């Protein structure tokens, strides 16, 4: 079926968008469908990806026609539970491709991270149906690139809401997070004309907890050797986590996990038993940014975990359903989100502990720290972590890159050498 009319109605640039879909589908074909011994359950993801700008967007448009709202966001600090509690739909905005960068550079300096540039690029080039369907886009004050970016982004989109965030895990910081969640809840109620009730919020927490539990289950299964599923497929699951209907997602990921359990039982997997096991840690990898995992796994290693926002940093904690009133439930949400160990916080020792724990839990042989060029929070933290991890006998490779393909050769050399280092 053709979605051209829908895309045109959304005001997208059809010609450029067709090209983008072609590149996406070629890239997917090459990097995902050529993998050996993939679990059958990945067919669900193949389908979701093939319809990522089609059927799923149509669902959003249909929901809007039925009176529901769509809320787009960029960051795992934006509480999906509140969005679901007003019967709105939460979508992550991907920003993982080098599109529209020349247009973006009319607003942003060249040395802005690719993620921020990509958010402008997608908007200016008219290429993201999720951005175009969003009734509101939620920005958040995290790093400077984002904060300053939003000051200009607000004039490019129909409706931008900016959430403030603390930078320190202090008492005052937590109060700020709570105040911002309360303000966001009120905003959502106004946007949708629906009240958040204890029942609707409880149900929303249940839905999101179930989704996070499913990816946590997947994460645990990857501790097995040989690895039952590739890192590339697992990353994809963690990316689709943000766009897909949560209940359908949960159901299908649990089915996939059932399949993986059978695999593990049989000793079946996607890599050799002695394949080096890598933990990937650092900046978020948004769709379709699969560059680093693809190189790692094409060179005989296997990724066993992602310490990323599109991974455990985004999904690790569940919300403990405590209390019976809306304010009590919002407190419970604050407790949950307060634990996110993003590099925009200072100090951020919890994150190092998370990395170490993941290395131990998934028996990783080494950590690849991935930083986007010009991302100060994660790049600076990677230098600090490298020393501490190496001192603990954990091999580390720091990679700084962007979305372009021109450094593929150099990256391959480094990653191959890192794998050789682990193997010796």
């Amino acid at each position, binding site marked *: 079926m053709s979605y051209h009319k829908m895309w045109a109605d959304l005001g997208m640039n059809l010609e450029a968008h067709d090209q983008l879909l072609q590149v996406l589908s070629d890239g997917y074909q090459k990097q995902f469908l050529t993998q050996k011994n993939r679990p059958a359950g990945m067919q669900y993801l193949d389908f979701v990806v093939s319809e990522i700008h089609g059927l799923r967007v149509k669902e959003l448009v249909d929901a809007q026609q039925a009176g529901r709202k769509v809320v787009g966001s960029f960051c795992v600090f934006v509480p999906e539970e509140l969005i679901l509690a007003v019967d709105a739909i939460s979508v992550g905005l991907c920003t993982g491709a080098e599109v529209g960068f020349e247009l973006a550079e009319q607003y942003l300096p060249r040395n802005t991270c690719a993620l921020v540039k990509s958010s402008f690029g997608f908007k200016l080039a008219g290429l993201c149906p999720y951005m175009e369907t969003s009734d509101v886009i939620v920005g958040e004050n995290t790093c400077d690139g984002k904060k300053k970016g939003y000051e200009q982004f607000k004039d490019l989109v129909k409706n931008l809401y900016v959430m403030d965030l603390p930078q320190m895990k202090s008492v005052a910081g937590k109060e700020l997070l709570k105040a911002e969640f309360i303000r966001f809840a009120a905003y959502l109620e106004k946007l949708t004309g629906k009240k958040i009730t204890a029942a609707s919020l409880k149900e929303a927490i249940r839905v999101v907890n179930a989704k996070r539990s499913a990816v946590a289950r997947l994460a645990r299964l990857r501790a097995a050797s040989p690895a039952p599923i590739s890192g590339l497929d697992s990353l994809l699951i963690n990316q689709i986590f943000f766009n897909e209907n949560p209940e359908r997602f949960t159901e299908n990921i649990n089915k996939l996990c059932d399949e993986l359990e059978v695999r593990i039982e049989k000793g079946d997997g996607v890599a050799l038993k002695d394949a080096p096991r890598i933990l990937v840690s650092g900046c978020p990898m948004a769709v379709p940014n699969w560059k680093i995992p693809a190189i790692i796994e094409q060179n005989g290693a296997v990724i066993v975990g992602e310490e990323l926002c599109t991974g455990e940093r985004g999904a690790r904690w569940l919300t403990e359903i405590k209390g019976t009133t809306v304010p009590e439930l919002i407190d419970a949400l604050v407790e949950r989100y307060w634990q996110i160990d993003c590099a925009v916080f200072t100090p951020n020792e919890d994150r190092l502990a998370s990395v170490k724990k993941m290395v131990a839990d998934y028996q990783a042989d080494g950590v690849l720290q991935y930083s986007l060029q010009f991302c100060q929070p994660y790049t600076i933290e990677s230098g600090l972590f490298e020393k501490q991890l*190496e001192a603990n006998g954990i091999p580390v490779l720091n990679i700084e890159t962007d979305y372009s393909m*021109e450094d593929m050769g*150099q990256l391959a050399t*480094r990653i191959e*050498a890192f794998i050789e*280092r682990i193997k010796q």
Partner: protein
Amino acid sequence: MRFAGFDIGSRTLKLVILNENGMIEEKILPNKYNFELQVKDLLPPDSYDYLVGTGYGRHYFDNWENAETISEIKAFAAGVNWYHKGELTILDIGGQDTKAISLDPAGKMKKFAMNDKCAAGTGRFLEIMAGALNLELSEFGNIALTAKRAEKINNMCTVFAESEVISTLSRGALASEVALGIHNSIVERAIGLLNRVGISQSLVFVGGVAKNPALAYLFRQRLDGEVIVPENAQLMGAWGSAIIARKLWRQNNDLSG
């Protein structure tokens, strides 16, 4: 038996062939950008029993028989470790990139670092700067060594550094002093990279750029430990690959190491 190590670098192709006892052949040729033909010429059928390829073009060998590929980093580590045992640091400045590798006392790769995307501080940088000064690459280092003082070059980006050099010259600076300034800036950048892996008492300087006498001289001045420039510095990657080819062949044929 013939064991081949082939290093397909961005600027040059390097081949070393060993037998059971030692080297029987070595070659260095410019990479003419259609290296497939050049490689085929150098390695006619039956010219080797086992081959290990390295360098940026290594994956060209992916489907060859009795062949495998390793990264340049592993190749350099193996090559240097063959001559110099024990804990040391390797600096390789090649045509397009710079690598620092530290080896532990057993000769195992401990840590490595590479320059980022750009060509700053690499062989290509040196070549362009020599060009800006109207000097032959082969005399560039020697001329730098005649300078009494250095003209400071601030830009590391190749493009900016080139215009900085030209404007410094037009201000009347001596070519030799500018040349020394350029060499200083390469050394500073390389030391920054070396610090990321830790500099041990011995630094082994390899790669095509190691032939430049001014750089070796400046490293000796700046570092406390010894600086070794092996005679076959440029061949080290091919040499290490050939050694690994021989080792792998022995392993595959169940002979001890």
